[in-house]
């Protein structure tokens, strides 16, 4: 046995003080950007919501809390619509997205898996305004979708539920929900796929060996393990959907407008910045409340 000389440890350490500061230097530009252009505007927005005045005369902080009350009264139905449309769209996304994520994770061969994933992500990279406008063609009054729904008498059912009116789909809640579902579906599929992909297929075999029927395997094994994906997916769909105003604008009529439309109108047309700020804060507070309750129920708080 020959004694191998230990290679001398190259002193890589820089002076200790400098190394301790390295992470801060790395963080500085990025975090400064976020503080100045994200955090500060939020605080500023809070103060704006309590100001009164006009653009010409300037705004003054008068702690005018009534703005909140007035905004809430004026836009209460916008809030109701925002959250119910977003909720329906989220449920639909889960119903449509889960089978697709499951297919990609367990049923597709390796080559197909990549093809399908590209087809799921590619719409991300194409203009979503153009695709939303394409729904106008798909759902048009004389189009095949309306015709089929009519033949199957589905429009009568949605009529009774208040989702459509008469023989139309465009400019009804159904069209807005359809657009929301479509636009946020990839946000549901990707987290679902990530959580399903991690499941060891041997777990399925083991369950089968223990005489579990396929549906029981799904209910007792697959679905519980995929829950973090379900929670992440529903949040990623619900939050942006409830703040969206594009689908309501392009596919709905004035009676389907959501809170986002209200904020946009107050900010860009009416130039009532305090009202726009108050609306944003109410929206944010309500979402935060709902998300907290939901995360408690779902019991997976450490997922993000």
């Amino acid at each position, binding site marked *: 046995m020959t004694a191998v000389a230990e290679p001398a440890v190259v002193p890589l350490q820089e002076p200790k003080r400098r190394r301790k500061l390295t992470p801060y230097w790395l*963080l500085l530009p*990025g975090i400064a950007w976020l503080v100045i252009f994200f955090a500060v505007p939020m605080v500023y927005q809070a103060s704006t919501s309590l100001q009164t005045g006009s653009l010409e005369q300037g705004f003054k902080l008068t702690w005018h809390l009534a703005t909140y009350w007035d905004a809430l009264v004026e836009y209460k139905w916008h809030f109701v619509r925002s959250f119910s449309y977003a909720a329906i769209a989220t449920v639909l996304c889960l119903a449509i997205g889960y089978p697709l994520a499951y297919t990609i994770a367990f049923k597709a061969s390796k080559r197909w898996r990549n093809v399908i994933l590209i087809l799921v992500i590619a719409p991300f990279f*194409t*203009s979503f305004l153009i695709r939303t406008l394409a729904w106008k063609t798909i759902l048009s009054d004389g189009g095949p979708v309306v015709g089929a729904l009519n033949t199957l008498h589905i429009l009568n059912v949605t009529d009774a539920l208040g989702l459509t009116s008469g023989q139309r789909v465009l400019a009804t809640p159904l069209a807005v929900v359809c657009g929301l579902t479509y636009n946020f579906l990839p946000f549901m599929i990707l987290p679902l796929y990530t959580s399903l992909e991690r499941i060891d297929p041997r777990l399925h075999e083991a369950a089968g060996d223990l005489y579990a029927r396929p549906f029981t395997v799904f209910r007792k094994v697959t679905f519980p393990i995929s829950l973090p994906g379900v929670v992440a997916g529903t949040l990623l769909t619900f939050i942006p959907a409830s703040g969206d105003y594009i689908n309501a604008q392009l596919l709905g009529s004035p009676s389907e407008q959501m809170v986002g439309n209200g*904020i946009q109108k107050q900010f860009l047309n009416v130039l009532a910045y305090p009202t726009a700020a108050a609306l944003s804060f109410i929206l944010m507070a309500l979402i935060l409340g709902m998300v907290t309750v939901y995360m408690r129920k779902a019991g997976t708080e450490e997922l*993000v």
Partner: protein
Amino acid sequence: MSRILTWVRAHLVVLAGILALAYLILPNLVVLAFSFNKPTGKFNYEWSQFSTDAWTDPCGVADMCGSLSLSLQIALLATLGATVLGTMVAFALARYRFRGRSATTALIFLPMAMPEVVMAASLGTLFLNMRIQFGFLTILIAHIMFCLSFVVTAVKARVMSMDPRLEQAAQDLYATPTQTFLRVTLPLAAPGIAAGALLSFALSFDDFIITQFNSGPTTVTFPMFVWGASQRGIPVQVNVIGTAMFIAAVVLTVGGQWIGNRRKARA
């Protein structure tokens, strides 16, 4: 008949998956089909006649290609800014323990968890009150802001999964810290950085909500152009651009995967 039913029952999930995929692709096919339409009125929502006019003259609409090039410029600069800043933050978060780490993580997470319209309105209010002229610069600032978090998340995931022993090995072989970083660390982190950059390019190029609140009346990006046109009547050329973007996206992702696979095969 019963055989078909048994097959359908056995493949129910896959069938539902295929239907979902069709639902995702359908609008893209409509956009493709209507790029060959010759509409009778202002609006290109109803099929009337086949024509290749829009494809042979894609810039035949006033202002559209200008807005397209503006969007490209902003997306490129925003990607550059967000990728550099975001990669630095990601390395700090993945490699160091320091005070204020959890606060930093929260600050990175918040912009992704907030409705876009809320961020858009607050930043717009700030610019307005600081009397900063809305335009190219304000759009760029806003885009870097919301792309940053996505870059940090993508790069951080990659850096966390890298084996630190590879860098130790390089140092054992007497590589200087700079050499280690350039020859080992950076190439290993590259896929994460590329993913973050690609994502921010797509997000910035397609962003409408934040842009609408922070652009002012004269700076019109491509999504802003489409939005305006949707009220006046959409030129067929918009569908040409939409189709071209879809094809470019597929080619880019397929190409990226192909390169990745070849690298893996060679390694």
